[in-house]
């Protein structure tokens, strides 16, 4: 399962970070950083153990920028 954020849609509400801090950090401007990859930090693999939280975060995103597939 993979979580992605469309950075052109994201408005930096930060709800995702509240719900899955394990996967999503916020920068100083309030925009999400997914995982720790160097070249692409708009996508991260979701561990099975927190899949429910990840899905909840995706459905709570006010801009629907966050997707879990």
């Amino acid at each position, binding site marked *: 399962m993979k979580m992605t954020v469309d*950075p*052109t849609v*994201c408005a*930096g509400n930060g709800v995702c970070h509240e719900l899955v801090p394990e996967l999503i950090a916020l*920068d*100083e*401007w309030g*925009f999400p950083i997914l995982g720790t990859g160097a070249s692409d*930090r*708009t996508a991260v693999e979701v561990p099975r153990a927190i899949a429910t939280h990840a899905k909840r975060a995706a459905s709570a995103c006010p801009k629907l920028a966050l997707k879990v597939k």
Partner: protein
Amino acid sequence: MTSPQYASEIRAPGKHRLLLAGSGSSLRSHEVLHGPVTRYPTARRGHVGHFIAPIEDSGLRGRGGGWFAAGTKMRAVAESAAARRKAPVVVANGMEGEPRSHKDAVLLQRSPHLVLDGIALAAATVGATATYLAIHEGSPVYRTVATAISERRNAGVDPVPVELVVLPPRYVASQESALVQGVMGQVAIPAWGKRPFEQGSFGRPSLVQNVETLAHMALISRHGADWFRAAGTRDAPGTTLVTVGGAVQAPGVVEVDTGTTVSEIVSRAGGASSRVQAFLTGGYGGAFASASFADARWSPELVASAGGVVGAGVLVAIPASACGLLETSQIVTWMAAESAGQCGPCRFGLSAIATDFELLAAGQADPHLIDRLHSRLGVIPGRGACRHPDGVVRLAASALTVFAADVGMHLRGHCNRSAT
């Protein structure tokens, strides 16, 4: 038939190919020099035209900045089109959004038909039913290119006539996913998650190639892959255009074999006009490199291993009299303003580092500025719809290293150089 003189000149080592003297911008002068324009038969739907073979064998890599294998890209578009049962589109990128690059304009001005030949070849190879050539508003080559296109239309040489598209002159409009949107009349800003070779203009698989790449393709189809490989390095063969600027006697565009040393490229531009302290390589989204970079060889991998970026072929000599931090501050400020403003890290991050550099260059840095700047440079990349922020971060980070001594001076409130 071409002249014996042409045959010897086009094969001479270390000579011009794209910028061969006497090419002229008219269809007639073009055909007199390079021989008649080939009427390429369009590939059958769902197939790749056989003209792809010499392009793949030549090892030609894209000259727009990415240096991606041109043949591989064409094959990907043709295969994507077959899988989707959609006719592809060819978009020739002559936008040249990088302010320090002039190679595309020089090429289009001197040999527009070489580029248009390449578009015809690419279109036939992937089976495209629409072709576009994109330049920016205010481009100095508009008239030349428009004339060349109508000449070919009147002569009926291309099965798929090229349509000229003029787009706003913004930096990010040159980016592939932005360009395919611009071509279809939408705002030319980068898109996230849509790959042009799958879903480009009008939802059709789109082949986006830089105009220099297309011109090389036109020559490869005339002279063969072995001819192409006779110049340049094994990994990035051929000649390439470099825009040389800054502290050189004769700034302008030169054509060199890949693998040529930076010092040789500088002497091709008349030599240095004053002592050179560093180089700006690859343009505003590239990297600064120290003076020892003069020994580096000009190919993507060799330049990268020497701390530079070839990108779209930009080499600027920074004179010892210039303040590298002030230069960086001006570039980063400009690039921040060129952000499309779609992605948070680019919109807010670039202006934040622009402010940091402005304070640093002015000798007004607070004690935390350097730490804050490093942390910002670490946080921004890899998070946008395009690589615009990544390029700016790379340039800014390289400035802190290459101009490290100046950073120390500025933190103590001094600068002993003046701006260029």
